[in-house]
Structure formats: C-alpha cells, structure tokens
C-alpha cells in the first residue's frame, strides 16, 4: 500500500452520557463565568507559560467539559497565574479562579 504520510486518526469517541462531568459541574458552580467561554483562544494566544511549553487554557477548558479531568489537572499545573488571560478574555471569564479550582480539585479527586 502506498504510504501517503498520513494515517487515519485513532477513534476518539466521547460519550457524554458516561463522561465524569463532576469537575465541570463543580467549576461551573463555583465560577459561573466558566459557562461564558466561547473557546476563542485569546487566553492561549496571550499566555506567558504558552511561550515556553505546550499549554493552552482553552484546551484545558475543553478537557474539563469533556470530563477528561486528569488531563485538565495535568495541564493546569503549567500555569503561572500571571493573569494575562483574564485581561485578554473578551467574555470576562475569571480564568485565574478556574485554574485555582482545577488545582484544588486535584486534592479532592
């Protein structure tokens, strides 16, 4: 078979009926502005930590909403809490608090 240099993506099915959305619920409860995110990526574009490593607040939010709590928690560790994303956010999402809540969740999970 001719190798075209790309393959079929591995199956990535997310069953939201079965996903563990506890982290998403807890964060939405403590920080309602989490719901406002439109995933525009301004936060990731401005991110200080993102200059040095693969870190995206936007992606972390996706992980949370998909119930992928472990990935979200691992991702959140890279944040320096500098607060640039909060200022860049066009939807006034309280990003620093979301990071804090995810980090706190690490201790309870």
């Amino acid at each position, binding site marked *: 078979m001719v190798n075209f240099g790309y393959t079929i993506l591995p199956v990535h099915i997310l069953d939201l009926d079965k996903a563990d959305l506890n982290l998403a619920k807890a964060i939405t409860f403590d920080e309602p*502005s989490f719901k406002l995110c439109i995933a525009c990526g301004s936060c990731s574009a*401005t991110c*200080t*930590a993102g*200059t*040095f*490593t693969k870190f995206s607040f936007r992606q972390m939010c996706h992980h949370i909403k998909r119930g992928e709590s472990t990935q979200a928690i691992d991702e959140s*560790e*890279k944040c*320096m*809490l*500098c*607060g*640039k994303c*909060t*200022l*860049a*956010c066009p939807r*006034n*999402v*309280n990003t*620093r*608090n979301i990071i*804090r809540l995810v*980090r*706190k969740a*690490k201790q309870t999970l």
Partner: protein
Amino acid sequence: MDLHAMHFPYHPFVLPFTIGLVFVFFYVIGKWIYWISRLGKDDRIKIFKNIFTLKTPQAVYEVFMECLIHRKVFKKNALLGYMHMSLALGWFLLIVLGNLETRYFTHGRINPPYFPIFFEFFEHDLISLNYGRFWTFTMDLLLLFILTGVGLAYFKRFKSKPLGMQKTTKHVPIDRLALTALWLIFPLRLFAEGVTAGLYDAGSFLTNPIGNLFASTLPIHYLYYPSWWAYSFALGTFFVLLPFTRYMHIPTEILLIFLRKYGIAEKDIHSTYTKVELSSCSRCGICIDACQLGSDLGIVSTQSTYFIKSLRYDKPSDLLIDSCMVCKRCDQVCPVGIDIASIRANERKELHLFDENSYKYINGYRYKSAKVAYFTGCMGHLTPSVYKATLALFDKAGVDYNFIDKDGSICCGRPLQLSGQEDAAKQLIEKNIKLIENCGATILVTSCPICAKIFNDNYNLKIPIYHHSQYLLKLAKEKKLTFNKTDIKITYHDPCELGRGLGVYDEPRELLKLAGNLIESSNSRENSLCCGGSLGITNISQEQRHTIASITLDELSANKADIVATACPLCKKTFKSASENIMIADISEIMLDSISDKSIKHNLKIENKEVIVKSSK
C-alpha cells in the same frame, strides 16, 4: 475619724470586682509570659538587646499616645477619637487618681485594690477632709469625661456616620455581652455614687445634685447596697469576659507596641507575634470602611476585622482568606498597626496548589544581554504603548539598554505569591534570578510595580532595581531628558504595589510635574484607591472589577483633571476597560508627549484621543 488607724474596710459586694480583677491580672500576665517565651530565640535576643535602649521610653510614649490618647483614631475622626480617649484615658486617670486619692486620705497606706474603686462607699464625708473638695471634684469630672464617651458609644450604635464610620463591626455574642457590661460600669458607678451622695449629702458637682434628685424621687435607703453590688458585678463581669473578647486588645496592644519597637515583625509563617497581633485587634471596624470590596461591591462580611477574629478563635473560611485584593488599605488605616497583609499572606500559604515539577519546562531560555536591562513583564506586554513610550525616552536619553524580555519572559512570581503559592513562586524566582544575572545587567528597570515589588522583596539581586518612573526621573535630573511643561492638568493614581507596597510616592509626582500641573485627588498617596484589577483576589468577577475601577476613576477625575496618570500597566488596563470618557495614560506616555525634542515625538495619541498640549509660553 482617724483614717490611718482604720482597719481595711471590707464588704462582700467587693467580691465580684476583686475576683474579676485577680483573674484578668493573672490571665494577662500568663499570656504575656507564654507569648514572649514562644517567640523564638532570635526575637528574644532582639528584646534583650533593645530593652535598655531609647526604644523602651519611645514605646512608653507610643503606648501613651495610641492606647490612651488614641492619636490615630483622632486622625480618622475627632469625635471617634474623643470617644475612645474618654474611655481609655478617662478610666486610666480614674484608676490612677482614685489610688492617689485613697493613698492621700490614708496617709500613704497601701490599700486593697477594691478600696479606691469603692472609696465613696467606705468613706462618705470626704469634703470635710483636707483638699476634699478638690478630690471629689476631680473624680466627678473624670466620671463625667468617661460618661460622655459612653454616651457617644451608645449613640454610635444607632448612628455611626457622625463619628466618621459608614459601617461598624458586627460583633459576636460574647463581645456584645462584654460590651453591655462595659457600657453599664460607669452609669452604675454614677448611680451608686449618686445614691450614696443622696444619703449622706456628699459628692461634688455631678454626684451631689444627682444624689439630691435620687433622694427626692427614689427609695435610696433600699438602693444603697444593691447599687454598689450592681457596680461591682458589672466590673467583675467585664474583667472575667475580657480575655475572651475583643477587649483583650487593651492589655495586648501594650505588649504589641513594645515588641514592635524592639524590631519584632511578622515572619514567613504564623508565630506567637501573630497571636499578639490577633489579640490586639479591637474590632473597631475602621478597616471596614477602607475596604473597597465593602464600599464598592457591598461585600461586608469578609473584611480584615472578621478575618482576624476568625483566625484568633478558629480557622478562617476559604471565603475569608480569599476575599481580599491585598491593596493594603486596611493596613494603612488600622489604628493598632497590625500587619494584616502579612498575616493573610501566611494564611494563604496553607493551600498548596502546585508542586516542585510544575515549572520544569522552563529551561534553555535566555534573556538578551544588557547593561541597563529593561523588563516589561507580563502586564507590560499587554500594554505595548507603555514600553514603547518608555523605550523611546530611553533612546532619546541615549541609554545603553536592552529590552531583555522583548520575546516574552517567565512570570516574576508575584501573582503566585499573592495567591499564597509561595513554593511555586520560589521556583519562578530562582529561574528568573538566573536569567537576570546571566544577562549581565548593572541596572534593572521595570514598568510593572507588581514585578518591582517582588524583585525588591524576594530576589536579592545585587543590582539596583528601578521602576520606570524612578528611572525616568533620574534621567531628567541628569539632564539627559528635558520636558516641556504645559498647563495640562494631571491626576496621578498611586498603584497599590508601588505606593503602599514599595513606598514610591514622590518620584512619579516629581516626574509628572515636569510635564504639567499635578492636581491631587481626595484619596492620594497612602490612601490611594485600588483600581480593582488586583491579582491578589480571584473570587470576584470581571464585572465587579469594572465597578471598582469606575468608582475609583470617578474619584480620580472628580477634580476635573485632563488626564489620569498611572504607573502600572495593570491599573491602566483595568481603568481602560471600565471607562471610555476619562483619558488614562501611563506616566511614560505623558512624559513622551511632553518631550522637548519634537523630532522624536511620535505625535502620541493617548488612548485614541489626541491630547492637545498647549505650550505654557
């Protein structure tokens, strides 16, 4: 009657008072010994080194000025100061002069402690004695002095605004009980002395007429003993409750003033000095009005007084620990001078959110090499006009600088530190120290007060650190920059981290005076309001931050200034998102706009609105 030959007089009603007094005396002495013994070796050495120096009389003077006169409360409001002074100084003088009075009448005999307190009960006919009129008059005058204060305290419960307080502390039940006892002591003394004066036609200008009034309206024969019992009981109740209530501040503040004078301060973790500070809080509530979370957002249950109370008795809730912008306005107004910000910072450290591997990814990165290193920081990168203006001025002055974090930098660590993540902040600090040292700079200039604060406090760099307002002033003084003074009216906003944080108030003002007319707002310098953008708080929304920002801006622009100058990129950004009408600019932008050399002036349009700079000539 020969008082000298008299045996120690006694009546059972003195017992409640005496028991209370003995209890509070030994409790307080015990606490003091416990606190001092647990201070740690370094602190005890400090005490021994300083106790026989001038610092001791200085501390005595401060105790007199703050614990008795209440100078700092007077500064807040004269009526409030009088209220506190009348109770503290009045009661103190009543005790001292009461003792002298009884010593005088008993020819210098040492009397039991209750004797001066209930002297009128034991000795009715004082006027016929030598100087009797003088003593009774003095004691009546002091009682009146205290009663006016108590009256003001009653009044303050219903209407606190005339005493300069918008909001007062919500007290716990045991405080209310002690407060009731305290409020009853002096009216009951007046009542007991009045009844006695009525029975024996004694007393001076206050107790005598009241006694006559009682004699004609009340069955004073029946009230004689009960009145003295009630007075003693109120005193005893107050003394027994004192150690467990806010009134513990009365003895503890004295210890605090001495310890502070001897150079003892808050450390990286809570110590017994913290316990002394916590017990010194009188919950006067002056910090409540200073807190913008309360005045601007209506959050009135999380102010420093509640945080301190909660920490003294128990463990504060997360809400109490987190709800603070760390603007340090409460530190500024606290009449006791408690280092609230440090206590709160130490309390926040209990929560560890990051671990030692969190920032492993930062390696192989270098800052540009430089002589004068300019560091704009994260917030600076969000407000490019600030660093552009600063660097244009550096160019003009011929400074051999390098913009070391032009391609980005790691965070200085202050935002983590403000969130209590001291260990995580240390990782960033260590990395950043290496990066800064490796760039070979001899001077570090930053536009960001947040960075400047932690550079100054935690970095231990061997090179001088300047905020750009300080450095630009230095350049102006060295005649490397000349500015055209115009008649533009500028109000300067002191950023929290630069002002209360680092004590830089004068340099930005001096600099701005070279460009225009500086007019002060009503809360400037140490009393400056926070812009609301604080990185010290995470549990308020952006909308709430905008509310704080617009209230602060209204206050800043109330004096009809043409432009509001700030020296912090975060303040600028926060203000900008809150208002479209008020012109806001960083100090460097204003300076660039008034530079004499028109060739480099880039017709700077501050916030898209051209400032019409009229030459003063």
